[in-house]
């Protein structure tokens, strides 16, 4: 390789440790680095710099409850690392390590196979979140409500609660979930704030969907995802077709939601 090509590669080291290389360039860089001591040094030294960046962030104290949650999660885990590492050639990976702090590299000398174990376990652990992310990607515009608009959430709730046209809707648990209960604050001009408790955990492939009950067909507000305790709060936009809604209902639907309700109703109520 000539000097000019190598300079270009070495300059990619900084991008590599930041995780800023697209997959193909990253793989190319990794293939080179495994054989090049100079680039390894570059990765190590720049990786050490990148490692320090989080220490300059504002240090925010996590909620007290998180400690118990973390410890409970590890207690639930047997701590066994899983299947023995298997040898996987690097080019079989679609993902490989990008951000390499020099010292951190050294912890992972177990071999490439350990990565596949961690990926399986990680998928199992975050299955719910992945499902939700896929939901959002697959949903069409009609179904995609503003429920997850993070930054706006607090403002929407407050605005709804203070809106002059705010109506309260109490939802009662229906036969599939007699202990479930819900309450919503609905302002046709501003939005919908919804809260529920005691919603049963759904099997894989199923989700809860919230509907505005209008004089014509029900209009979807969006999908709701209770936590493991069966509780959920969410805020939604009110689509134009739903401004005259007189009630709300929650049904069980396939993952990703549907344009019209198909499944059993779990919660329902009308506004006063």
């Amino acid at each position: 390789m000539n000097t000019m090509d190598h300079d270009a590669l070495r300059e990619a080291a900084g991008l590599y440790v930041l995780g800023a290389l697209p997959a193909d360039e990253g793989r190319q860089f990794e293939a080179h680095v495994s054989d090049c001591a100079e680039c390894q040094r570059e990765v190590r030294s720049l990786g050490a710099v990148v490692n320090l960046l989080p220490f300059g962030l504002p240090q925010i104290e996590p909620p007290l409850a998180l400690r118990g949650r973390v410890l409970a999660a590890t207690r639930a885990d047997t701590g066994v690392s899983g299947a023995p590492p298997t040898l996987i050639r690097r080019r079989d990976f679609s993902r490989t390590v990008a951000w390499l702090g020099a010292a951190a590299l050294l912890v992972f000398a177990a071999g490439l196979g350990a990565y596949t174990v961690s990926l399986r376990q990680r998928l199992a652990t975050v299955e719910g979140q992945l499902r939700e992310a896929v939901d959002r990607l697959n949903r069409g515009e009609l179904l995609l409500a503003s429920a997850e608009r993070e930054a706006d959430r607090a403002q929407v709730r407050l605005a709804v609660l203070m809106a002059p046209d705010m109506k309260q809707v109490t939802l009662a648990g229906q036969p599939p979930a007699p202990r479930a209960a819900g309450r919503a604050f609905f302002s046709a001009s501003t939005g919908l704030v919804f809260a529920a408790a005691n919603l049963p955990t759904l099997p894989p492939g199923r989700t809860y969907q919230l509907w505005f009950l209008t004089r014509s067909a029900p209009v979807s507000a969006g999908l709701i995802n209770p936590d493991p305790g069966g509780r959920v709060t969410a805020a939604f936009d009110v689509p134009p077709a739903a401004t005259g809604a007189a009630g709300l209902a929650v049904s069980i639907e396939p993952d990703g939601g549907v344009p019209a309700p198909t499944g059993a109703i779990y919660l329902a109520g009308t506004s006063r």
Partner: protein
Amino acid sequence: MLAGQSGSETADHSALERMSRGDHEAVAELYDRHGRIVYSLALRIVQDTADAEDVVQEVFSQAWRHASRYQAPRGSVVAWLMIMTRSRAIDRIRGRRSRPEPMDADAGPSDMPDTAAPVDEQLALTGQATQLRAAVEELSLLQRVAIELAFYEGLTHIEIAERLELPLGTVKTRIRQGLLKLKDRLAGAAR
């Protein structure tokens, strides 16, 4: 100057070793020492407290599961936690946008050979955050924004160039210059 740093690193290695033998108290110890920085990094990336809490839990669960693979004292446990945190946090925000994925900064093993840890890394463990922040402040706006877009939002250099409406070459150069400047400032501080 590096007071307390070696103490923490030794204690971290000891905790990890005990975790590898199934000691749950060791997880508590690691969390008490590093939970805050893990949470702070997660929060910076995912910008949502519930998601950040999930990331923290995932990170410590992963640390717990992988502790048994831990080798004798080498490298920085905090750096290991940071890598996992960033990886999971970036994955989470990528799930919110449908984009083709760049290299995944996951905490997987690599086939890089074993090498000694650079001294600059130890600076982090002294808690000299002010020094780091000062070094970051010295970067030009473009250098800093480009680095932060890459590190905290998981964008590729192509995506950064699009976002900032700049030529790709400019973005790559700024990132490289910024990292070299940081390295220079922080290495100077460690002496």
